[in-house]
């Protein structure tokens, strides 16, 4: 049995290609059913996300079965196979295992260390389990994959630190206020990034939302979406007396809030801490405001620097994660290798047992009626001879030596065995 990965991902395939081959929740069970019934591959997990369509399978014959899976991909989606030509990734053996471990750990993700992929893989595996599309090998592999992903995330910092601006803003707010629930928040102005950051803040529990904009219609619209109240733009100074977090993204050509103004406001609000996030370009908030006690002002570049620094740190941590993955790949291969010898060992035992029974019956028949304890003694004699004879070869097969492949081959020939593994192997 060989583990293979056949698929498309963001590294090589464009979104135009990926979307053609995506398996949605309706198609996925059908695909698994088809693969199983047509015996293309014995075990299957299909991971279909916006960045990747990957099939993890165990196949008997590497050369022909990979071809069959590629055919299946094109047939199932009704897309000519040429579309796949330059985009497909194919891994087998150690590379396949490594790839799956890396994917689950977020090492192969667009955003390094992002956590969603692990959940998506768990879901994909869940669907395969539901349709009984996996067995010993993939079950073991998936279990191992999840534990590897857990290890890389807990033992390294690949998932730590927000790597985009709006998440960085939320993370920062949490380091200032701890718990965002019940905190009040004002969005000044509008704009894609401001709205995204607002959405993240609200998603993290910010409750009291105020929106202000020079065009009231847009403010009303956003207030509807965020469940907040609208105030006229001229009144925003009053709001500053009690709010905790402000995002500023107006199109004003100059500073709308100066240090002296906020200094007075801070006195009036008895220095209650305030986090201001100025997304506007040109900036709308006097940068010197950051010098005031208990006021924390970040502009776009500041947060971008934070996100970049986090991304860099994740990159450094990724090296550690790769080392963990490599060690785990080796340990998995070791287990898989021990699996290869098992059919041979079983076959040797079966064959020996068969011979023993045959000869025992013959002898007992020749000897005629015997006392029970004598029959037991003869039986014991035969089985102990047999066990002692087959012990060294089976022990040798179990050991992880470099020449194991040769040994398995030799054992098959010496004992004239016909194992599944033997049949499947191409000479």
């Amino acid at each position, binding site marked *: 049995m060989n583990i293979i990965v056949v698929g498309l991902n963001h590294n090589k395939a464009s979104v135009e290609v990926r979307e053609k081959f995506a398996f949605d929740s309706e198609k996925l069970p059908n695909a698994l059913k088809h693969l199983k019934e047509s015996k293309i591959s014995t075990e299957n997990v299909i991971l279909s996300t916006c960045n990747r369509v990957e099939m993890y399978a165990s196949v008997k014959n590497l050369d022909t079965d990979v071809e069959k899976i590629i055919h299946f991909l094109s047939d199932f989606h009704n897309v000519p196979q040429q579309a796949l030509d330059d985009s497909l990734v194919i891994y087998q053996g150690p590379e396949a295992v490594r790839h799956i471990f890396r994917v689950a750990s977020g090492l192969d993700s667009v955003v390094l260390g992002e956590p969603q992929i692990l959940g998506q893989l768990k879901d994909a595996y869940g669907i395969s389990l539901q349709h009984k599309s996996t067995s010993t090998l993939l079950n073991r592999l998936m279990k191992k994959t999840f534990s590897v992903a857990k290890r890389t995330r807990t033992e390294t910092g690949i998932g730590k630190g927000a790597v985009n601006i709006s998440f960085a803003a939320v993370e920062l707010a*949490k*380091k*200032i206020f*701890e718990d965002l629930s019940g905190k009040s928040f004002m969005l000044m102005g509008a704009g894609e990034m401001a709205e995204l950051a607002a959405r993240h803040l609200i998603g993290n529990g910010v409750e009291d939302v105020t929106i202000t904009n020079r065009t009231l219609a847009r403010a009303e619209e956003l207030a509807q979406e965020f469940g907040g109240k609208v105030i006229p733009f001229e009144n925003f100074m009053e709001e500053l007396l009690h709010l905790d977090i402000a995002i500023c993204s107006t199109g004003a050509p100059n500073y709308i809030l100066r240090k002296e103004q906020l200094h007075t406001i801070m*006195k009036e609000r*008895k*220095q209650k*801490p305030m986090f201001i996030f100025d997304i506007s370009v040109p900036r709308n908030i006097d940068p010197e405001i950051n010098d005031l006690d*208990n006021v924390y002002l970040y502009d776009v570049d500041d947060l971008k620097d934070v996100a970049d620094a986090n991304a860099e*740190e994740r990159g450094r941590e990724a090296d550690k994660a790769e080392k963990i993955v490599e060690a785990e790949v080796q340990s998995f291969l070791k287990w898989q290798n021990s699996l290869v010898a098992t059919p041979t060992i079983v076959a040797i035992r079966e064959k020996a047992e068969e011979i023993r029974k045959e000869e025992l019956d013959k002898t007992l028949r020749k000897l005629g009626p015997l006392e029970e304890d004598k029959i037991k003694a003869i039986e014991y004699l035969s089985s102990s001879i047999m066990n002692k004879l087959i012990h060294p070869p089976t022990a040798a097969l179990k050991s992880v030596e470099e020449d194991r492949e040769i040994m398995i081959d030799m054992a098959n020939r010496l004992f004239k065995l016909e194992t599944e593994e033997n049949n499947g192997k191409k000479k």
Partner: protein
Amino acid sequence: MQIETNILLFEIALTLYFLSTITGVIEIFRSKKGASKAAIYLAALGFIFHTGNIFVRYVQGGHIPVTNMHEAASFFSWCMLILFFFHEFRYRLGLLSSFIMPIVFLIMFSSAIFPREINEFLSPALQSYWFGVHVILAFLGDAAFAMAGGIGVMYLLQERYVKSKHLGGLFQKLPSLQVLDEINYHLITLGFPLLTLAMITGVIWANSAWGTYWRWDPKEVWSLITWLIYALVLHLRLTVGWRGKKAAILSIVGFIVVIFAFFGVTLILKTKHVFP
């Protein structure tokens, strides 16, 4: 024999606090988590031996063991640990052990320097009901101020990360500014009434022992200075909102004064104030 037992217990506790401190400091420089837990276990184990030491000395001396510098410093760090464990389990503050255990260890270490004899015969002035009440209040108050000082250092560090916009280093591990500020405030609101009550009981006790309420003894003067500082901290916080950075700095200043009133007054200035 019994003297040896209490010294043995003390040495074990001191060693465990040292190990806990080292582990806590290692936690600061490690990217992985987990050393923090070890630091807490080591501290807890040390605390058990430490409690044993105090108990043995209590039985031996027949009074709360705070009648010389060795006992007083040891009792001080013991009170700090009680507050440390309470905050650790209540709030699970990141890196708390890394910042508090060094203070605990240093106070405990200073205790190790002083002579360790047990005073079996107390002066009549100390044989009073007020003695026990006064010292427990005073030591818990001092412990709360010491904790507040440690938390203040954590606040200043975290504040520097946020203000400078370089969110590396300990930024991720340190608690949020709000939590640090709140706990700093809680500790001072705990320490202040304790100190106030300690001073009131001290004054009453002084009157019953010496027939005078206040003698301008250096210990009394420095207790008053400490009390005024923390009164100011609370006053400024409640009226003009001196919180955050300013409160953190004040609580560190207050802590330094507490330490001076504790060690300095006895060692440098002449005081009649028998320890406590």
